């Protein structure tokens, strides 16, 4: 049911170093903090971290699958509150769920939750979908 308070079932994506390399190539964001552990540590990070925009792209996939296609999304925003940490040779989770927060004649607004290793990585994540 499309009604305020309804939950959209949780889904888990897998992030690993291979995906970070693929996203770097597809997005053009080759910042070494997303690929080079030595560099990441040298700038004070705990390890290589995922691109915030990769996290947002995967959460976006959750949104567009539920919405019925990329063309349905008119607004999408999030704050990056904690990094997704991606150690070498490790699959880490990105677990996404959502709740419908507003419904009007033309659109549905959903509030998104995204965690990795139990830590909330996005804040104030929201999407508006055309009906």
């Amino acid at each position, binding site marked *: 049911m499309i009604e305020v308070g309804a939950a959209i079932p949780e889904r888990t994506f897998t992030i690993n170093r291979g995906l970070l390399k693929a996203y770097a190539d*597809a997005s053009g964001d080759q910042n070494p903090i997303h690929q080079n552990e030595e560099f990441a540590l040298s700038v004070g990070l705990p390890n290589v971290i995922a691109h915030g925009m990769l996290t947002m*792209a995967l959460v976006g996939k959750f949104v567009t699958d539920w919405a019925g296609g990329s063309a349905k999304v008119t607004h999408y925003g999030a704050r*990056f509150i904690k990094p997704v940490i991606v150690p070498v040779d490790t699959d880490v989770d990105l677990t996404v769920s959502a709740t419908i927060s507003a419904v009007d004649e033309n659109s549905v607004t959903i509030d998104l939750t995204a965690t990795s290793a139990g830590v909330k990585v996005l804040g104030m994540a929201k999407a508006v979908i055309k009906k």
Partner: protein
Amino acid sequence: MLNPDSVGRTFEGANSITVTQSEIDAFAAVIGESDTTVAPPTFSIRISLEQSQSILSDPSIGLDWTRVVHGDQKFEIFSPIKGGDTFSCSSTIESYRVAAGNEIVTVRSDLKSGSAIALSSWSTLVVRA
């Protein structure tokens, strides 16, 4: 530090960027999206971050891009991007403040098709002290 005169100003970027279907396909493939009739909602970051970087790194504006981390991101999509679309780009420095030595800059990037805005996005960038 950012030149305070640049706050509130709009800077013109590339005046003709054409999105190819293969760029959309490659971006979509990373997130497991097989329907690429329109681009995924965050695809435009590929254009807007590069445009913002080239504009804001200009010595007359003075943002130190090597110290930038992404604080938040928002998209308003008026018309979904398709392969073959051509856009002109502009970036507006909407707000700027310094907190605990970090510079916090919000930049709006517009992709225009003719005079119509197809997509606006807002990136809050934190330049770490």
